[in-house]
């Protein structure tokens, strides 16, 4: 389910899209699994962080995907620092 908040993509060239908490939760979940977090812990961290980010996003008319990534990493760092690092840096590997 999308909120009425637009997400502006990183390059600015691709179309804006509505903020989708499910998509965000999936990406956080995957980042946790990528650093070998157990499945249950990954799911729980993804749910909590998605909830916090959704509250933050709801106060804005539009956000950039970079800002979302930064805020996710900030919150995820409390639960799983390795996953937070990976989530923030996975687009900066290549």
């Amino acid at each position, binding site marked *: 389910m999308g909120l009425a908040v637009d997400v502006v993509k990183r390059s600015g060239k691709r179309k804006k899209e509505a903020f989708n908490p499910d998509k965000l939760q999936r990406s956080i979940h995957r980042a946790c699994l990528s650093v070998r977090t157990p499945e249950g812990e990954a799911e729980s961290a993804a749910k909590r962080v998605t909830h916090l980010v959704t509250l933050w996003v709801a106060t804005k008319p539009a956000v950039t995907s970079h800002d979302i990534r930064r805020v996710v990493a900030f919150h995820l760092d409390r639960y799983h620092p390795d996953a937070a*690092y990976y989530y923030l840096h996975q687009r900066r590997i290549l």
Partner: protein
Amino acid sequence: MTPDDTTISLSIVLLAALTHASFQLSISVLTLMSGHALGRQTARRRLVNMIGGFAFGAIVMTILLLSFAAYLFGSLLPYNIPLLVWAVGCGAAVGVGISVWLFYYRRELGTVLWIPRGFARHLESRAKHTRSATEAFSLGLTSVVSELLFIFAPIILSALILLRLSPELQLFGILMYTTVAMLPLMIIGLLISNGRKISRIQKWREANKHFLQFAAGGGLLILGVYIYSEFIIVASALGRM
């Protein structure tokens, strides 16, 4: 060729291989591919196969590039390598060495490399969608080709040096070059296969990226200047032009 000449030639090939080993593109692609595979909860056995396929692809392409360069020079210049060709090889090594010092990593966080963004996007996309050892093999081949801009200098100089050796030593030189150049990739592959976290590996790479950049650029400069003084200045002084 005296035993001393053989030792010097193999040492030059070894230094060129160490320089090649300092380049990071294949390792970045392997890290990305493994991260995506783990995120999809890929079974450990399949992940190990994918890493093996990727490393095998990178090894095959390195052997092919070095053998092709040596074959090309051997066919075009069957009797003697002109000093001009050595000079071009040394110039390329020095030029690429300085470029590596200045440009290899982009000036931002992470380990983003100064390669054409089209290549980077393609590799990122393929790393994300790779699901089998065969696809990983193809990605390994492509990742080495994508780094050609930086690795062509050590490959050209090694090929020129290998032509001075006997056929058995040429084969040994190619295997030694490939083994040394691919050693970091194999070590990272083994670490990931044995359960090390991608984030730890990436943190280490990020913390040491400037040292690796300095080593790669410095290695190329030393290689270029040494070969220039050994093969061009000395040959010119002896009147072998």
